[in-house]
C-alpha cells in the first residue's frame, strides 16, 4: 500500500473509526478513478471535499482541522542537505574559528579523537598557509555526500600562486616558514589531495577519512 494512502487513512482515523476512514478514502478515490496504490499526496486537494463530506457523516468533525491536517501531509520539510561550512580566512583568529568548526563537524560525524586530530590539523595547515602567504581566502568544509565519514576540505585563496609547487610537493624544498612541510604533511594525512595554482590564486581540495 502506498504511503500517501496509509498516511491519509491515519489522519482520518483520528476523526472516525479506521473502517470508516478506509471506506471514505476508497470511495473518494474511486470517484477519481484512482486505486489506493496510485494515490499520491498531490491528489489530496482533489479528493478533499469528498473526504470531508464522507467523514462528517460518521461523526461531528472539525472540518477545518481535518482539512489542515490532510493538506499538510507530504509537505514535511525535506531533510536539509548537509550544509557546507564556509569560513573566511584572513587572520590568525580565523584559523582558530576554522579549527573549532572542524571539530564540531567531526563530532557530528562521530569521528574518533585521532581522526578528528588529522582533519583539524589539515584545516589548520591550509588556513595558516592562506594567512601567511595570501591576502585572504576561504575554507569550505563538508562531509562527502556519498560517504559521510569522509570530510571534504576546499581551501581557496586570492594569492599569487605557488611558483615552486613541484619542488614543494616532491619534498625537496624546505621553506624558512614551513609551507613545504605543511602542504606535504597535509597530503600525507589525506585520502585524496589535489592542488591547482596560478597567478590569481590557489585551490586545494583534500579529503580526509574519519
Amino acid at each position: 500500500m502506498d504511503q500517501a494512502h496509509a498516511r491519509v487513512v491515519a489522519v482520518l482515523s483520528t476523526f472516525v473509526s479506521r473502517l470508516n476512514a478506509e471506506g471514505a478514502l476508497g470511495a473518494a478515490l474511486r470517484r477519481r478513478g484512482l486505486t489506493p496504490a496510485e494515490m499520491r499526496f498531490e491528489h489530496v486537494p482533489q479528493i478533499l471535499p469528498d473526504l470531508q463530506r464522507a467523514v462528517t457523516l460518521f461523526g461531528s468533525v472539525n472540518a477545518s482541522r481535518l482539512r489542515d491536517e490532510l493538506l499538510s501531509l507530504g509537505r514535511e520539510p525535506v531533510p536539509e542537505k548537509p550544509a557546507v561550512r564556509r569560513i573566511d580566512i584572513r587572520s590568525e583568529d580565523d584559523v582558530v574559528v576554522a579549527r573549532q568548526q572542524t571539530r564540531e563537524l567531526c563530532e557530528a560525524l562521530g569521528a574518533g579523537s585521532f581522526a578528528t586530530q588529522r582533519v583539524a590539523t589539515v584545516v589548520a595547515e591550509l588556513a595558516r598557509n592562506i594567512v601567511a602567504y595570501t591576502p585572504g581566502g576561504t575554507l569550505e568544509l563538508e562531509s562527502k555526500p556519498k560517504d559521510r565519514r569522509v570530510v571534504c576540505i576546499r581551501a581557496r585563496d586570492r594569492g599569487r600562486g605557488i611558483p615552486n609547487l613541484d619542488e614543494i610537493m616532491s619534498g625537496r624544498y624546505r621553506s624558512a616558514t614551513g609551507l613545504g612541510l605543511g602542504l606535504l604533511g597535509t597530503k600525507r594525512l589525506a585520502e585524496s589531495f589535489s592542488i591547482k595554482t596560478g597567478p590569481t590564486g590557489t585551490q586545494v581540495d583534500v579529503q580526509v577519512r574519519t
Partner: protein
Amino acid sequence: MTRAGPIPILRVADVLLTTIHVDLQDTIAAAFQEDVLLEIEATGAKGIVIDISGLEEVDTHVARILAETGSMARLTGARAVLVGMRPEVAATLVRMGYAMGAIETSLDVEEGFRLLGAWPKG
C-alpha cells in the same frame, strides 16, 4: 623582569617550567621565544620544561616554533624538554613526516624534571 608574551615561565629550583595553553600565533610565538631566552639568561637555568598538554592541536607551524625554541635554548646552554604531547598530536605529526628536531621529549612534567635531574629524590 618584563615579559613580552602572555605565556608565563616559572622558575622551579634550577630549571624553568612553562605551560602553553594558547594558540601559538605568530606574535605570541615570537614573544614566547624571546621570553624563554631572556629567562634562561636571567636565571641561569640549566633547562626548561615546555608543557603542551593543554594544546589541542599542534600543526607544523606550532611544531616548528617549539622545535626552534628548543634549538635556541640549547644555543644558550640550556636543555629544553617538551612534555605532555597528546597521543593524537604525536600520531598526526609523525604521519605528516614531521620530526621534532633537536628538542628532547618526555611523557609529562614530572618525567621532564627527572630528565633534567631536577626532581627531588625519594
